């Protein structure tokens, strides 16, 4: 595949993430912050998000797996994940967290278990897609090209 084709692929792939609602306009905010003085900003923030989220999901699994679930421990984790997913534009993860928090408030253990599964699913999805996105970008840069600007009609 030549450079132009790779760049087109990247653009199409990125657009699809927005169309599927996996990413929202906040992700564009991150891209705006990337420039010559900060060339890896997006991947740095996203990597931090992955690390933080892995930890939170692990803690959530532990907390919800207790005999007696302490919602005072569960809710702050979900709150944090909601905040960070919102900050990077991981829309579906954020939305799943909103639902999760409602059930935390109701102290509904069954529903919270389901919510955790949903959040995990959405998280793995966005992680997978973003990792692919970064790989496409790396291929372009390795071929001596530039990452094309994303132009969307929001």
């Amino acid at each position: 595949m030549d450079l132009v084709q790779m760049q087109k692929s990247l653009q199409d792939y990125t657009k699809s993430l927005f169309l599927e609602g996996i990413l929202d306009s906040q992700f564009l905010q991150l891209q705006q912050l990337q420039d010559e003085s900060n060339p890896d900003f997006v991947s740095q923030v996203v990597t931090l998000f992955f690390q933080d989220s892995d930890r939170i999901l692990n803690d959530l699994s532990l907390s919800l797996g207790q005999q007696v679930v302490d919602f005072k421990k569960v809710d702050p984790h979900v709150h944090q994940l909601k905040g960070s997913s919102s900050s990077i534009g991981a829309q579906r993860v954020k939305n799943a967290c909103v639902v999760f928090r409602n059930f935390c408030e109701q102290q509904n253990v069954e529903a919270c278990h389901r919510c955790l599964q949903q959040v995990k699913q959405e998280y793995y999805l966005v992680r997978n897609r973003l990792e692919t996105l970064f790989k496409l970008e790396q291929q372009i840069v390795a071929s001596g090209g530039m990452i094309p600007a994303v132009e969307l009609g929001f």
Partner: protein
Amino acid sequence: MLTTSPIKLINGFVADPSNNTGQSEIVQVENGGYVDETKLETSSGHCPESAHQYENGNGRCFSKESESCSSSQASSEGGTLEMESELTVSSQREEEKAETNLKESSKPKILLVEDNKINIMVAKSMMKQLGHTMDIANNGVEAINAINRSSYDLVLMDVCMPVLDGLKATRLIRSYEESGNWNAAIEAGVDKEILENEQVCVRSTNRLPIIAMTANTLAESSEECYANGMDSFISKPVTLQKLRECLQQYLH
């Protein structure tokens, strides 16, 4: 000039040339976009990163009431509240004092109070693009200690944080502004020794602008923010535009 990624124009967004913080110059480049020149100069030290990181302290949780959204993560921890970061900030103390003395001519001092690392990274980067650096505090107690040490021009206060949330911290700061002392904070459990020993700057008579960063849930509604002494709010997620408008309104 630009050898890596081109300027991204998204949704017609351009850096508004009239929207000058006084520190940045907007130049037009060939592709019809605008670039903030300070960003190009950043790596050469034009905008030095002078953010002071205050380490998270252990402490009692103040969120006994159910209304508060302060996390109860610290509820099982006892002991007094104190900053564990004395060693890390001590070398920066001289710089801070000098900065306080030069307050009239130096750039605005902004404090970001936020516990989420990702949010901090994004906000710092946005502020950098707007030509500013920020000090960071990770909870309400660290915020109070920071405000006690230095004179800030603007505080961006996250509402939900562990140890001491933004609403309570703001109430305590306003009490300090009105009374001239930190008695209310000490009563609430903020470390007495630190507050009494560390006051290095003369308290400004101007009201400190405190802007809430809120997720806009019931516990974090704008009404709650105003009722607790905040001047305004930014709803999350924080964007460049929201920060720019905030700076325009509250920094002179």
